[in-house]
């Protein structure tokens, strides 16, 4: 049996195994996409870089200030405090949503099609709620006078106060973010699991592999690409959480939930062009670092796991 036929029979895309022809004319096909991305992504970035070195009382009277705005940011304690809070928030969110999402996807994988469809539809509903409405829904829900959760907590005698108790604000934000985004992790994890050919499980059954071994040596490696995508998306979105956190408590109490984006949003809304441009660039550099680390980790992982990619049948 030829290697191509082998992979085709197992519905493994050939694409990843053979070389794609080299053809520079492919640029014509990506050009329209590139033009739009340049217009709405690259040009604004160039403009914002330009602003970040200037004092712009109005856009017509620029005054060159060099790296002053940057110096202000990297020497301010407020920046590092916000950075720390954003990292902590992302860490909590990831450590809850990723295991939970994988767990649900594993359970789905053993369920019938009807249950899979129902759960997937249900769990993705919060994804289609506009972001400014998510805090409104939750504030309504935890309202002690009218909200179901608020009344429940009051009935249980729990003095829940998300306005003035920092821990309670954090709990609301984490629970709300999990409600909002769990569906994305489940969909991605389930996509990874359902791409595993049945032959892998049959081979595992012949070897009398335990459930843990099946997870550790078959499911987890096969889920790796989509899972890392889920981690990347969840990390970035939680790290830069803005509207949701702002609406719940505007960074309070006492700046306990002042994340990176809230500082930037505040400056943009007060039309401090120069400082907010510098802050945008600093944040963009963080994004760039994260994306690069992700890419490096993915290519390293691809090389390292290359031998195990071979079919075990």
């Amino acid at each position: 049996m030829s290697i191509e036929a082998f992979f085709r029979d197992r519905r493994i895309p050939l694409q990843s195994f053979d070389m794609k022809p080299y053809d520079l004319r492919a640029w014509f096909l990506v050009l329209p996409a590139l033009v739009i991305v340049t217009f709405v992504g690259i040009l604004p970035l160039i403009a914002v870089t330009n602003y970040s070195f200037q004092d712009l009382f109005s856009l017509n009277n620029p005054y060159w200030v060099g790296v002053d705005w940057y110096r202000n940011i990297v020497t301010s304690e407020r920046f590092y405090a916000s950075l720390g809070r954003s990292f902590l928030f992302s860490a909590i969110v990831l450590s809850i949503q990723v295991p939970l999402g994988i767990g649900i996807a594993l359970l789905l994988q053993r369920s019938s099609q009807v249950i899979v469809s129902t759960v997937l539809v249900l769990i993705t509903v919060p994804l289609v709620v506009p972001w400014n409405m998510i805090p409104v829904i939750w504030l309504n829900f935890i309202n002690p006078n009218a909200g179901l959760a608020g009344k429940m907590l009051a009935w249980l005698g729990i003095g829940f106060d998300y306005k003035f108790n920092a821990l309670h604000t954090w709990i609301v934000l984490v629970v709300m973010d999990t409600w909002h985004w769990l569906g994305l992790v489940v969909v991605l994890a389930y996509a990874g699991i359902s791409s595993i050919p049945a032959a892998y499980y049959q081979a595992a059954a012949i070897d009398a592999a335990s459930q843990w071994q099946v997870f550790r040596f078959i499911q987890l490696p096969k889920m790796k690409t989509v899972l890392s995508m889920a981690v990347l998306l969840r990390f970035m979105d939680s790290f830069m959480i803005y509207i949701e956190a702002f609406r719940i408590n505007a960074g309070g109490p006492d700046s306990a939930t002042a994340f990176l984006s809230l500082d930037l949003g505040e400056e943009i809304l007060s039309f401090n062009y120069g400082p907010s441009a510098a802050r945008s660039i600093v944040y963009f550099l963080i994004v760039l670092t994260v994306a690069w680390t992700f890419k490096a980790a993915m290519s390293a992982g691809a090389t390292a796991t290359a031998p195990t990619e071979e079919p075990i049948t």
Partner: protein
Amino acid sequence: MKSSPSWGRIALFAVIGVFILVPLAQTIITSFVSTLPRAGIAEGHFSLVNYQNILHSTALKDSIVNSIIYVVLNVALCLGVGLPAAYAFARYSFAGDRQLFFLLLVFRITPTVVLSLPIFVLFAQIGLANTPVGIALVHCVFNIPISIWILEGFISAVPREFDETAFLDGHSLPSFFFRHLVPAIAPGIGVAAFFCFIFSWVEVVLARILTTTGGKPITMAINGLFGFRTDFGLVMAMTVLAVVPGIAMIYFVRNHLAKGFVIRT
């Protein structure tokens, strides 16, 4: 690996269902309650008054139209430029392809608040502020990468012999695209359209900064409802309307939802 249903698993799914649905249920209930004192309706009782008020408000009805215009335009744009690009990535290697892929990744994860200031200035200068067209264009920055990734995954799953046969039959590239490739990856196009739709529909930072005076989408119209005496019933009724199209989309792609999202770097 399909086994008989276990009650523990069903119970767990039920708990998740409750967690997801209860906050929404309260929103739906509030949307059917009159939350401000009105002549003829007891406050706090069941009523359709909120939905009737939407029908009577030009601003709210316009916002629904604006939202639909920009989201349809955005999905059409992203699929239109995403499909050829995805084909290029799936079938060819070319100078700079990896760098371009990385660039798309970076723009997908760049928080919109980072780009909002220059986009506001740029779009105001060229007359794209306060129009649904402006929002549709701006949302391409995170949706074009999404559409390219998803479509690339689906195109890669089609064997290359499929293309070669069509070309041998005398099809040109455009003719092959519309007569063979698009039907072959129809579920993928559905999934890509779905993800472009939701990410554009729910985005509010760029939508807000671009529609300070006009062209407001649903999200911004809802923001405008908050004031000294907020009619929460009306807010919740608008929220319910804002979620309905998304739920319809989920229902249409439910069987393909989990298939297309495999991203290579």
